[in-house]
């Protein structure tokens, strides 16, 4: 990557020669570029040179007229600083030409299809990639022991990136003493201070490290010969890096042997089970009893019924849900509240009415003086039905078939609890409890008597309150629901 600086100063006919202190002297370039642009110096009249050796050279730049103004977007400075690390010797002139154009075309950076904007981006990309690859492919070798232990790496970047990249290594390897040597520059961290030094040669770095044998073992074994994709590997890890990677010398052999290993794996007949297999099976997986069918009608308590419902397959809703969300509350509750179906939060928690609607419901019950601990809450449908939309699950209404299938559980819950009153929260619950669709808003507040004598109080689902946007309407609806709950309390007492 080291390109000899061509000494063109004697030959150069450009009116202005600018000397930069080093290949990475961005500050020097920026100061000179500002002054040159302000004085109206055309790009073709400047020759950019990098000082070789230790001689400092003074630049004599044209005077700047006092009224001159130059505005360059901050974005350009940042991007130019990255592109400046590129090894292209023409970069100083190119970046100055860009400044020159920006004076008249302030939006130039946004024109992605412009030739110069693309070139800037290509240079930045190359530098960023080189920085990234350095972070990836630097390999430290350890020397010394105990308090003398140090880690030294030899790396050959394409561009002048050591200075720009050193902070990354400081932050990552703070607790180590390390040195990264490259042909252009070196970076050294003694545990407290970072020092940038001159370039070095490969011979200055240690020649080996015992841990590399373990790393090579890992590399060999993490490779899956049945999935050979050499091009994909080389795209990300081009051969130019291989000479400094301790694992890379294994690659040709691994590639050459892969096809045979993979074919052998496929061709080899499966062997008989390992000797310990039977013992493990007997110890850990004694023959499972056949799954208890949920049809089992012999549940004599809510907890037995809940257990039976865990594996419910009466409708296909179990497939997408996490779990059955069964009812909750005392076996001898006087009142049972029936909602529609569990939502996102209920599906995760396995408990009914714990999501946003459940919180509204709890608060209103509390205001009405109904003790949540003494009532039983459940849903008409016990699995969450939804459509996935990215990271959200959109509630979908259960259909008549799903409601009918799940009635099996509601019926048994009611048989075991024998409540005085059931509250149908919303249309789905009413449909489940009464066997047919009911206009909830019309019949709200009514008490229906079922054929089996059970009284069913009809009202809305608390999620209805959540969906109202207008605060006044929302408050009014909450108040109506509160009155409903107060009536439920009176009916409970009756």
């Amino acid at each position: 990557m080291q390109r000899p600086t061509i000494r063109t100063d004697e030959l150069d006919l450009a009116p202005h020669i600018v000397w930069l202190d080093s290949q990475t002297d961005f500050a020097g370039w920026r100061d000179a570029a500002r002054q040159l642009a302000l004085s109206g110096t055309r790009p073709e009249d400047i020759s950019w040179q990098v000082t070789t050796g230790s001689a400092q050279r003074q630049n004599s730049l044209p005077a700047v007229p006092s009224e001159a103004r130059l505005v360059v977007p901050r974005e350009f400075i940042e991007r130019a600083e990255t592109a400046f690390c590129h090894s292209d010797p023409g970069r100083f002139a190119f970046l100055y030409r860009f400044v020159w154009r920006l004076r008249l075309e302030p939006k130039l950076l946004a024109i992605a299809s412009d030739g110069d904007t693309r070139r800037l981006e290509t240079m930045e990309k190359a530098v960023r990639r080189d920085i990234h690859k350095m972070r990836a492919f630097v390999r430290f070798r350890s020397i010394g022991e105990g308090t003398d232990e140090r880690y030294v790496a030899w790396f050959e970047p394409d561009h002048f990136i050591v200075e720009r990249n050193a902070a990354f290594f400081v932050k990552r390897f703070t607790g180590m003493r390390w040195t990264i040597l490259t042909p252009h520059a070196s970076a050294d961290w003694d545990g407290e201070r970072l020092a940038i030094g001159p370039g070095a040669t490969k011979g200055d770095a240690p020649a080996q490290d015992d841990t590399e044998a373990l790393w090579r073992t890992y590399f060999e074994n993490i490779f899956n010969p049945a999935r050979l994709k050499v091009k994909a590997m080389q795209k990300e890890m081009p051969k130019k890096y291989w000479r400094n990677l301790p694992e890379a010398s294994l690659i040709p052999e691994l590639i050459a042997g892969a096809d045979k290993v993979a074919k052998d794996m496929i061709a080899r007949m499966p062997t008989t089970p390992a000797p310990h297999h039977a013992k493990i099976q007997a110890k850990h997986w004694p023959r499972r009893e056949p799954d208890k069918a949920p049809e089992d009608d012999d549940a004599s308590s809510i907890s037995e019924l809940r257990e039976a419902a865990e594996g419910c397959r009466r409708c296909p809703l179990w497939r997408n849900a996490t779990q059955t969300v069964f009812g909750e509350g005392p076996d001898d509750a006087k009142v049972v509240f029936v909602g529609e179906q569990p939502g996102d939060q209920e599906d995760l928690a396995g408990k009914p009415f714990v999501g946003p609607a459940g919180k509204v419901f709890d608060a209103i019950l509390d205001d009405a003086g109904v003790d949540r601990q003494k009532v039983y809450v459940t849903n008409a449908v016990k699995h969450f039905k939804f459509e996935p939309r990215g990271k959200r699950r959109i509630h979908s209404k259960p259909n008549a078939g799903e409601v009918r299938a799940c009635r099996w559980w509601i019926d048994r819950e009611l048989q075991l609890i024998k409540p005085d009153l059931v509250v149908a929260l919303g249309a789905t619950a009413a449909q489940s409890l009464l066997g047919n669709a009911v206009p909830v808003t019309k019949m709200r507040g009514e008490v229906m008597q079922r054929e089996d004598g059970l009284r069913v109080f009809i009202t809305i689902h608390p999620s209805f309150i959540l969906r109202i946007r207008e605060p006044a309407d929302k408050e009014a609806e909450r108040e109506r629901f509160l009155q409903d709950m107060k009536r439920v309390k009176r009916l409970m007492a009756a």
Partner: protein
Amino acid sequence: MSALPVREKLAILSDAAKYDASCASSGSAKRDSLKSGGIGSTEGMGICHSYAPDGRCISLLKILLTNFCIYDCSYCINRSSSNVRRARFTIDEVVRLTMDFYRRNYIEGLFLSSGVIRSPDETMGEMVEVARRLRLDEKFSGYIHLKTIPESSPELIEKAGLYADRLSINVELPTDEGVRKLAPEKKPETIRLSMARLRRKMEEKAEPTLRTKKRERFAPGGQSTQMIIGADKTSDDGILQASARLYGSYHLRRVYYSAFSPIPDSSSSLPLQKPALMREHRLYQADWLIRFYGFSQPEILAGSSDGMLDLAIDPKLAWALRNRGRFPVDINSADREALLRIPGLGTKVIAKILATRHHRRLRLEDVGRLCHSIAKLRPFIIAEGWSPGALTDKQGLRDKIVRSCEQLSLF
């Protein structure tokens, strides 16, 4: 067994770990060692420190604590009936290997998984101990990914989340039926419950605590999962349905698809063939369309005859060919959502198009300069001075595009 040298254990236990596709070291919180004076940092984006000839990135030290296992999942090299050599690392050995590799800049961190020995809690407990020692004793700030054993106790999972960047639980196969058939001891219900528990925990810890007003650390890199493709008969549509459900339900950062790969000493109940790498690739592309391009899952394969992704062309092009009525799209006026639907245009190029067209109208050549090839998108766009005319509805358009893209293909 304990007499095995570390190098041999490493050979056995990395060979045993390589069938897990996930290796990402990204998505965690940014941190470094400046304050602690320890070792390690994480950036938003992970770093691949090497590449194996299978084209896969080597970012983490991916190993099993042990490949002894009481489960007998037929697709797994470590199943109890397999005749592979077995080994078991000590906690100390894993900690030392991780630190030795990290200090030499071989890795971004550790991805620790394990066969289940004796009980899920005992195994999970040892994995958590490795993470604890790395964080507290070694002052290690690199990346830690722990594979979570679904049956282990909530207390252990909580501890795991305290030390790890990412936790993952494998759903193993796209359908419950598949799991029951090929991994008879695993319970899909338990796996779902564990993922649900992880999501709740992550949401709970994302809230500042009442007392300290600070957020407690819990797996900042989120959770992910893997499913094996091609070991059962699930169609691509079924697979994408399963992953859409998983993303929505458990807020996974990633679903990894791993083409079933023949393993040494494989079970006779499996298809013994080369892994379907192209199918895997197309599934990842479709997954991307759903997560970053505004496609809904049912859209991807709507109108296809067999519910399978076309192996010869990418899923967006296949979708566009099936929905030609929505094209051509005017590159100079269409909104971002419409641009995202154009085959051959990625999110970055679209951002550039949107920025550039404020200042000038784009010609076909301009678009060509911004993206790799215009062969794919020519029939689908209108640009200044360019209209595809009847090309959009031409018979044989698919084959024409396939031919012009062939030399550009990676495979």
